[in-house]
């Protein structure tokens, strides 16, 4: 005889029954290329999101390339001059 731990829990069963899943149409086999394209096109988190959300972060993003360029110019100057 099967013991059902959900027995008598009508409310929980009703809630669980609310969880429907729509099954998409897809073939039995997918090519490696399709998978690679899906991987590339899947949305990902913005790595700069934490910086964009604050005024200081935005300023840092603006200033960082200038500082980087100046630093790189100095390095080149020391190396080649």
């Amino acid at each position, binding site marked *: 005889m099967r013991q059902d731990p959900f027995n008598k829990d009508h409310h929980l069963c009703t809630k669980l029954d609310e969880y429907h899943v729509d099954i998409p149409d*897809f073939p039995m086999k997918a090519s490696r290329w399709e998978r690679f394209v899906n991987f590339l096109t899947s949305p990902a988190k913005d790595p700069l999101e934490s910086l964009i959300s604050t005024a200081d972060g935005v300023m840092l993003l603006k200033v960082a390339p200038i500082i980087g360029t100046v630093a790189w110019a100095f390095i080149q100057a020391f190396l080649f001059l």
Partner: protein
Amino acid sequence: MILNECEDQLMIAYQNGDEEALKGIYILLKPSLYSFIFRYTRDEQLSIDIVQDTFVKLQRYKHKYNPRNGKLKSYLFQIAYRLMITKLNRRKKWRSLLPFLSPIQSEELHHSDRITIREAIAKLPEIQRAAVLLFYYHDMPQEEIAKVLEIPKGTVKSRLHIAIKRLKEELGGDEYEAGSL
């Protein structure tokens, strides 16, 4: 029960060289496999990939299936569960190395709103989630769940018990008591 016998017969036909039988198995079992993985991971693309990989494995090792050892459904769920755990573990490793690669969750949890059953299931620890999904949505007896998850039957029982308790807590004590009266 009739459906299970049908699946097993189709598998035997496929083992004997009937390629059309594989299509029949796919049509019969794709929805339940997909819904199990989707409810577990809540990731559509990953669920599709795992269902496809499961059928690739079934084709590759078709002669390893023996109807005496269990139903085809349990056999496929076992393959899918193993693949899913491997992929999720691999994904966790990559995310720890490259955190910006993590995909955006389409449905964020809103703590201010009343928790839905989707969120309650997603909040369950992984080891309990699989047991509840297989038992409730896929009508699997505890013996079969034990086979799929490769754990003793007693562990399945305790995981189910704890998971149900947690689900009740997550769905809100007041509302739950009112609903069950």
